């Protein structure tokens, strides 16, 4: 990193707010397989790599996953070295609805 670069502090929710979604309430399409695996995971790459900020470290050392803002990219599935992400597409018609893409 250059000496002058300051990582921007920003709220990803403000970006997601511009998007259109049809949330499948009560039927999350992504799940953590084993919560204790997340507790013992030091890297927690999901909290960095998810472009929608769906993965947050919780104070107890585990992970809180809220998929409402998910962009359905598939990143969390691939970056988890523990293969702890049970990943599926939402039901047809649900989830992100890109206006422009």
């Amino acid at each position, binding site marked *: 990193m250059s000496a002058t670069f300051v990582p921007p502090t920003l709220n990803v929710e403000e970006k997601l707010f511009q998007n259109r979604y049809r949330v499948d309430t009560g039927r999350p399409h992504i799940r953590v397989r084993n919560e204790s695996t997340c507790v013992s995971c030091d890297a927690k790459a999901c909290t*960095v790599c998810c472009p929608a900020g769906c993965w947050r470290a919780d104070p107890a050392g585990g992970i809180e996953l809220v998929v409402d803002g998910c962009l359905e990219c598939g*990143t969390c599935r691939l970056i988890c070295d523990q293969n702890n992400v049970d990943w599926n597409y939402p039901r047809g018609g649900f989830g992100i609805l*890109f206006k422009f893409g």
Partner: protein
Amino acid sequence: MEKFDVIVVGAGPAGNGAAYTLAKAGLSVLQLERGESPGTKNVQGAILYADALEKIIPDFRETCPLERHIIEQRMWLMDEDQTCTGMSYRDARFSQEPYNRYTIIRARFDRWFSDQVKKAGALVVCETTVTELLRNGSGKVIGVRTEREKGDIYADCVILADGANALVGSRAGLRPEITADDMALAVKEVLFLPKETVDARFNISGTQGVVIEIAGNVTHGMLGTGFLYTNKDSLAIGIGCMLSDMKKQSLTPYQLLEGLKRHPTIKPLIEGAEMKEYSAHLIPEGGYKALPQLYGDGWMIVGDAAGFVNAVHREGSNLAMTSGRMAAETLIALKAAGKPYSAANLAAYKRTLDDSFVMADLKKYQDVPTLLTEQPHMLGMYPRFLGDAARELLTVDGVSKRAKQQKIMADLKGKRSLLGLLGDAYRFWRAFR
């Protein structure tokens, strides 16, 4: 029991290229798409290469929603937050019809393409996710299962055009799972500005457009690139990096994108724009060496699902449309000859690809992904060096130009041995030649 000649999974450029070509030739086609309508799940920069679409729909220009035709390409090497070294190429010939490259908005483009597919006679069903493939006792693919009730549908061949995540093929064991090593994550925003403002800021008029490709330390040492494209009354800005790099560092994708937007070279270009969408998508960048088996008994893979992306030239949708068309033409020829869709017969698809620009280009750059991952200084050090050298030469401070040049050379040698430099030059030339 409902049965089709062909089921196409996915309605992106690959699936649409295939479904259109098949339906036009009179085959019975069912196309399944998980989105509410085609395009609602898809993300692209987006540059459309006319040639690939022209070979499917020759008169596409008459009805296709196109944004601008590209008359100028800029290549910028940018650091994180200060400098930009660039070149631009504007060519008056790019303004002569028929135009060769356009910017498009994917959601609109995909809907248009899908309308053409329906007009050609295919049955297109949206809001339907394919969950698995149906096989018979000998392993031949005979149809698909959807999440709908009584959702099994049968066909003589299934074309997998389900995009970068390639879930259907990998869950059926037809191809290996994709990995973080072969995938880049790109994030993108669409920023709206009045057309006159876009015209003035990019020195264009009418339907002329400019595209900018961005490399260098804006990616903070990760293997990746950025882009800024002009649409009619909006700009598309994005940045993408390899997942294998991204998972090893601490900047989020939206921080990277925000960093790019705040860069002093970019900021005045997007000033005052209204952000109307934020999106993300994977790009398969493993190239030739990551290609899976492309066909088998009753199935074929096309487009991003097969990994057909030329990352060096940022081409994907054209390879998708072309591979979709070639898969379709293979089936059309076999049907006309009365031959079954067996693995041996479908091998003709691979041979057609091998003889085309698709494989030729993927082979040409097959060493680039490895080169850049194994020699990270190719991305970080050289772009930074170029910026430093330019600053040194352009700062008028009483030091002689010769002394400045000597300092630049000394800086470069300090960063890498002469042998290392020569090796880099050779490897670079080998990979891109």
